[in-house]
């Protein structure tokens, strides 16, 4: 008698448990659906935008578009000065921001004493990453264009974008350094390495992947930046190329291109977009699509490189 009663109570319990699990699983599904919708809103909007750009700009995807200077006639206007300008500006950005960012990150992480002052610097570096880019433009206008008299040049633009992505490089450098286990560091010190030997043989080597990712993500941000470049006064209509960095006579390189006027892809796009003639809007759409593709390629490279480098490092 008691036995049957117990069995009955086990059974009711079991039904209750099953009902509860069902309820909880329903919540699971509801949340998954909400999450998926949120994700799709973001993704689909971007995708639609991209498809729209490609559809509008499609007629201009040809070699001529890349090899022509801007022109008064939309049909024969091209991107030549813009993409050359973008590459040269990014070159300056890369050369300045990468060593400075990695150096600063290494110093903060490895050498700087940990006290209130380094905390203050840390907060400010993270903050800098969030400062609106136009502020950098204003700073550059005052400092590079007027203060140092560098003019509205490729050098100025490159330095400005360099400043802009510096915090990104610093933060990613520090984060990838921090990911190195203490045990590896101690192992290096334990065989008698000096701090510099530890930094150069271990810290830099093992954090390469993360640093590289940060650099590329910074560069892909720089390529699309418009506001600071406009602020320093980039020209919007450039029908010439800067002097070539390499020459046929010794010393084979020259630096005149640094002080040349220039335009970059997003500014060329902005310029075409602001024309009333619809034909120019096609050019703008094509340019937009190209910028997106380049950015995607750069980020893709970052992911691939990180994967390649991380593959050999397990901890």
């Amino acid at each position, binding site marked *: 008698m008691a036995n049957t009663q117990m069995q009955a109570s086990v059974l009711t319990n079991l039904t209750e448990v099953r009902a509860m699990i069902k309820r909880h699983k329903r919540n699971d599904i509801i949340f998954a659906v909400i999450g998926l919708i949120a994700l799709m809103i973001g993704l689909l909007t971007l995708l639609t935008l991209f498809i729209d750009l490609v559809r509008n700009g499609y007629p201009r995807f040809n070699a001529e578009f890349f090899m022509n200077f801007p022109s008064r006639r939309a049909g024969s206007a091209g991107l030549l000065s813009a993409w050359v300008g973008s590459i040269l500006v990014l070159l300056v950005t890369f050369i300045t921001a990468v060593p400075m960012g990695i150096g600063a990150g290494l110093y903060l992480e490895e050498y700087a004493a940990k006290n209130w002052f380094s905390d203050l610097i840390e907060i400010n570096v993270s903050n800098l990453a969030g400062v609106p880019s136009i502020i950098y433009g204003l700073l550059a206008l005052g400092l590079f264009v007027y203060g140092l008299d560098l003019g509205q040049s490729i050098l100025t633009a490159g330095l400005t974008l360099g400043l802009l992505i510096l915090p990104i490089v610093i933060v990613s450098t520090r984060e990838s350094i921090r990911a190195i286990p203490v045990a*590896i560091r*101690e*192992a290096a010190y*334990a065989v008698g390495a000096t701090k510099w030997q530890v930094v150069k043989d271990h810290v830099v080597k093992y954090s390469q992947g993360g640093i590289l990712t940060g650099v590329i993500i910074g560069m892909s941000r720089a390529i699309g930046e418009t506001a600071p470049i406009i602020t320093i006064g980039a020209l919007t209509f450039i029908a010439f190329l800067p002097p070539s960095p390499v020459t046929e006579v010794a010393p084979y390189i020259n630096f005149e291109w640094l002080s040349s006027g220039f335009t970059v892809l997003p500014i060329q796009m902005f310029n075409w977009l602001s024309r009333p003639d619809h034909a120019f809007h096609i050019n703008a759409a094509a340019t937009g699509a190209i910028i997106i593709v380049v950015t995607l390629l750069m980020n893709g490279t970052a992911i691939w490189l990180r994967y390649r480098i991380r593959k050999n490092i397990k901890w």
Partner: protein
Amino acid sequence: MDNSTNVLKAESRNLDFFYSNGHRALKSINMPLYEKKITALIGPSGCGKSTFLRCFNRMHDLYPGNKYQGQIVMHPDNTNILDAGVDPIEVRMRISMVFQKPNPFPKSIYENVAYGLRVRGEKNKRTLDDKVEEALKGAALWNEVKDRQQDLAFNLSGGQQQRLCIARALATDPEIMLFDEPTSALDPIATANIEELMSELKSKLTILVVTHNMQQAARVSDYTAYMYLGELMEYGETNNIFTRPTRKETEDYITGKFG
């Protein structure tokens, strides 16, 4: 064991250690370290064994605010290796260390072993090759890896990785080798290999080992020190400590009544 043949390699004299938060982790420790003998440090977690071990290669210097008081004197040169005038790097060149978990560098097997030599400025390929081979043989790893020295160290098993770390520590001909619970992350077979290796190594150098494993201390060590709450409670020949401990606490710990 005949005490008369024992030569003093190092000794700690009234050693106190303070962590940067002010915690006094070691209290006036006096302990000898005999040449070509294995000394085991045992005691419950947090008793200061690892802290004591890490004083010997000045590992605590890597973190600001830590403070030593007292001396660790190395013989025959009578250098107090804790002296502020002695560079910790010099100390680490004489005393090497094997860590709790195998921690090879994410480099090739060869480079792991060669690193200590490279740090000392050795560039000659022949010398490096010879030294690496010698160290790998000394760590009983040569036969397993001689044909794949350029492979990544991470591709080795846990026990092999730990032997690689021993080879790395061995390559620079240290006078003393420190082992910080070297087998706690290994399976019983790999553990037996490491223990055997330690017994072989003591023909060449002096060993100080921290262990949680009573049987290990009993098996491999010549001397045992029992530590509790930062103090050295008892020190003596391993046989005596395990069969006739003079203190009740030591006996309780060894027999597993507490710890």
